């Protein structure tokens, strides 16, 4: 290795090392001062989500339609079948309509050959 010379270091531009410390300190400070923006952005997002959630909670329910209200009473068994029929102008027509709908939906309850056993 004695046969080879030492490497000559490549020189930087004139005055480089005079300017370098301040450049680095300025850069370090500017990176530090921008760090707060990340926290601010996260805070804004959280506050926005919180406000949206709160608005949903306090949203006023739309009033029910007559039909919806009636279904509510029936499902909660506050009204019986007789109560509902009594509200109708023609309860028999209403019953006929219901039977016809139910009959069509289910088809015959028993097949023909099963009716013969008794």
């Amino acid at each position, binding site marked *: 290795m004695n*046969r*080879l010379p030492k490497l*000559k270091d490549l020189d930087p531009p004139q005055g480089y090392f005079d300017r*370098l*410390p301040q*450049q*680095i300190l300025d850069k370090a400070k500017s990176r530090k001062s921008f760090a707060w923006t990340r926290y601010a952005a996260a805070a804004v997002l959280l506050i926005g989500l919180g406000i949206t959630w709160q608005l949903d909670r306090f949203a006023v329910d739309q009033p029910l339609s007559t039909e919806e209200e009636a279904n509510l009473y029936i499902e909660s068994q506050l009204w019986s079948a007789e109560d509902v029929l009594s509200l109708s102008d023609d309860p028999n027509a209403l019953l006929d309509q219901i039977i016809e709908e139910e009959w069509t939906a289910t088809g015959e309850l028993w097949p023909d050959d099963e009716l013969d056993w008794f």
Partner: protein
Amino acid sequence: MNQTDQQILEQISSPFTRELGFRQLIETYQRKVYHVIRRMVIIHEDADDLTQNTFIKAFRSLDRFEGNSSLFTWLYRIATNEALSFLEKKKKRYFFSMDDHHEKMESYLDQPGNLNGDEIQIRLQKALLKLPEKQRLVFHLKYQEELTYEQMSEITGTSVGALKASYHHAVKKIEQSVLSE
């Protein structure tokens, strides 16, 4: 740890003298850090970026510095990692573009004002560029910086034995390349 290092760390630990401490850290080690990086990356603008990054990273992690090594060794570890990562990224980019960073570094050496036409120096630098990056680093740390193998082991995280073998091979290759032409 030497007195200068102790002084620097004391200044940095106090919020009133923190900036003064950082300034002293830079002024004490800037030339060494710059040159160890520049030997690896050759081009001044790249060396400048990496030197600044090294000190900024050092500031951020100074709280974690335990004082088991000197500030010099610790800074060198950051600087050499920065240089090796930079060269690795450049190598990967080559697969996607025609930009051969290796060729760029070689032609930079030929520019007037860099080595002033010193034939042996240019040949030596170009021969070094042919080495794998880590081997080139080992060569620089041993031949140019004249560090001990123990110091190099602390900086690179490689065993003394591996470093000795690496340096021996690097020297052989450089001698063959430079002296045979």
